């Protein structure tokens, strides 16, 4: 019982905080939070929830292909909640597994972009001078290209470097690097601006006067104070990275077709729009929409909640 008290205290501290209070007052935030949580949990627990494993080709029966939702297949008699695709894969299971890949790629890419962007931003903002000039010009150049083009370029270069036999295994990592590298700039710019403001404040000067090393000042003193806007961008970036992954997979340069992500599923489903098999496209597209929209709304809400001027 002695243990639970501090835990309860932490819980109440979070519950009573300004951010939590604003969350409770915002119906949009609550709905988006619930939707995002349901999709994330479903994706994480896919191996236990999904009725079939769509990534195991040997478990598929081609004759199950094109089964409409909730109708028994004419040959096999199997019934599927959301029907099956052209290879006899259960669409519901494939969405769960596909969302897993989409989320993994999205979150990993943003973490990579964050790590790169925060480091570059802190150094540029704190050091100033030519370091700042070089880093920010690189950022400017990259900002002038659409990020999807940069991701395609990185993807193409990586395909050239990686030996053909490794390509399929490395596809997901290449995707993460491609999206991460195309996305670091906004983190760098925001962190650089905030760092320049913070480094002039008294607490930083005090730390400098008593001889704290620049690295320690950056990490212990400045970083915690610039994390607010970074969290907002990170949340919105996750939504954008999930869409970027879907776009790349839709273009056929993403994950292998035997391990579909949401974007690959939409690409497959799109072929059957005219022939009446609407479910192959509709359900993955709705899932992608719900996931991206809810994460984006959460980011929006977080921006408002963390903005002191709106309080």
């Amino acid at each position, binding site marked *: 019982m002695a243990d639970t008290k501090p835990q309860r205290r932490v819980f109440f501290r979070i519950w009573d905080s300004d951010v939590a209070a604003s969350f409770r007052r915002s119906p949009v935030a609550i709905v988006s939070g619930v939707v995002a949580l349901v999709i994330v949990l479903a994706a994480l627990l896919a191996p236990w929830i999904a009725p079939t494993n769509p990534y195991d*080709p040997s478990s598929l029966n081609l004759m199950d292909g094109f089964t409409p939702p909730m109708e028994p297949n004419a040959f096999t008699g199997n019934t599927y909640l959301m029907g099956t695709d052209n290879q006899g894969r259960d669409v519901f299971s494939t969405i769960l597994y596909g969302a897993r890949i989409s989320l993994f790629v999205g979150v990993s890419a943003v973490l990579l972009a964050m790590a790169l962007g925060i480091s570059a931003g802190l150094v540029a903002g704190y050091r100033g001078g030519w370091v700042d000039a070089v880093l920010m010009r690189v950022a400017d150049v990259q900002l002038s290209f659409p990020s999807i083009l940069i991701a395609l370029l990185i993807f193409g270069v990586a395909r050239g470097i990686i030996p*053909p036999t490794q390509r399929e295994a490395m596809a997901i990592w290449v995707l993460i690097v491609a999206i991460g590298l195309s996305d670091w700039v906004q983190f760098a710019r925001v962190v650089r601006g905030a760092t320049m403001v913070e480094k002039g404040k008294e607490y930083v000067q005090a730390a400098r006067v008593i001889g704290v090393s620049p690295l320690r000042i950056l990490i212990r003193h400045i970083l915690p104070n610039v994390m607010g806007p970074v969290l907002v961008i990170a949340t919105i970036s996750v939504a954008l990275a999930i869409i970027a992954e879907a776009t790349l997979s839709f273009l056929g340069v993403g994950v292998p077709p035997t391990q579909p992500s949401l974007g690959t599923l939409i690409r497959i489903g799109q072929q059957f729009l005219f*022939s009446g098999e609407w479910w192959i496209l509709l359900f993955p597209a709705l899932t992608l929409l719900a996931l991206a929209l809810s994460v984006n709304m959460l980011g929006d809400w977080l921006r408002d909640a963390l903005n002191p001027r709106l309080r």
Partner: protein
Amino acid sequence: MTSLMKSAPRRMMVSALALSLFAGAAQAETLRWARVADALTLDPHSQNEGPTSTLLHHIYETLVRRDIDGSLKPRLATEWAIHADDPTIWVLKLREGVTFHDGSAFTAEDVVFSLDRVRHESSGFRALHSAVTGATAIDDYTVHIQMAGPSPLYVQNLTNFFIMDSGWAAANDVLVPQNFAAGEENFAVRNTNGTGSYKLVSRDPEVRTVLAAFDGHWAQTPPVTEIIYTPIAEAATRVAALLSGEVDVVQDVPVQDIARLQQTDGITVATGPENRNIFFSYDQVSPKLASANVEDNPFSHPEIREAMALALDRDAIQQVVMRGQSQPSAAPLPPFVNGWREDLNAYGAPDYDRANALVRGIYPDGFSVDLHCPNDRYLNDEAICQAFVGMLGRIGITANLISQSRSLHFPLIERWETDFYLLGWGVPTFDSAYVFNFLVHTREEGYGSFNGARYANAELDAQIESLATMTDLEARNALIAQIWDKVMEDRVFLNVHNQLLAYAVRDGINLPVHPENQPSMADVTFNN
């Protein structure tokens, strides 16, 4: 009508307007033609590949052409015969009064030059002319082709042999064909000078190619005066373009959309069998495979090849992947081709238990290997590969599917960089020798350029070479049957099916299905 009768001048004006409209329609008839892929190159002797040859047939011409019914018809050659005194010489009489697009005259020199060019080592058509030793122009309109021995069927090999202008080729430094697999470019890749019904107006590879009728063509001018050729790789986009009126002809109709298009007002779908079979093949010769996770070559074991054949469920692929639009067959040649036999065609139901036992007998844990597949060449090619990946998974073979565009896929086979692949093969000569020359003969001297199996059998090679010069057709057919028996016994190919073709056109346009999927827009007629 009565109101028009009232005033004669007005009536005249209206009829003049109608006349000018009608005349305009008759003069300029644009046909917008979409298919899955673009020509790989416009160099007429570089790539022996379906869409490339189909587009080139509009710009360049061949000596003879294949009619819809499969028979040979005169084109640039008016007569062809074996020399009366020497069975090793083919005598060709050429059409007089033919000019190239740039105005220069077509003569025997151009045929001699083109025959030399198509036999160059960078040519993709070399195996078709391997029995030729040389050609001479007897006069302006007579050519003698010297063969290594009697070659009674050689003229069948000329249906995709395009004639280039020797002067133009010399002036633009394109005396030898582009080496496509090496990534080479030359002037002829984007510029043309043929004798065909259409000349090239503009070309933006993979985007749009515009052809206009050539006024100086020797035959009557075709009803279609302008062709806008657009490759659209996405199946749904291609159909949407037809439904929305953006294009008039869609050549590679996705099988899933045939039923819907047939029910759509204003659109006609024509279907027919194509002279093309779709098969898997694998390296059964190398001691070790680059992409396999075992120490030897699994495909070198006859048991593994048998197991893969037992795992292939052709009927399921036909019903689900192809929606009935295919002819499942075990014979690695289409029924159009001389040498096809009912017994080669037959296949049994899949037997996963026996296949599994065969694989586990050699590899208790199974094995994995890469499977290369095109995704923009054949009907549902990627889906066929995916389906087979699933079937192989059930017998302990993990195939990692790598599907990519055909411009990346075909060089893998030509350069022996794939262990296991899908390929489709059409037979323009309608004879088994064509299949043997390209796919079975050991790779050497222009033979076996698509022999990705690395198959090498000296005894078969000698028999294949002798086919070109055999005059006794009965003995020749017996030898073809014998070669097929050996190829089937060694399981060089794992055939899936023969393709069925579907063309969808706007109502009022007549375009018959061509068995080689080489429709000519010059043959299009309009109903009014």
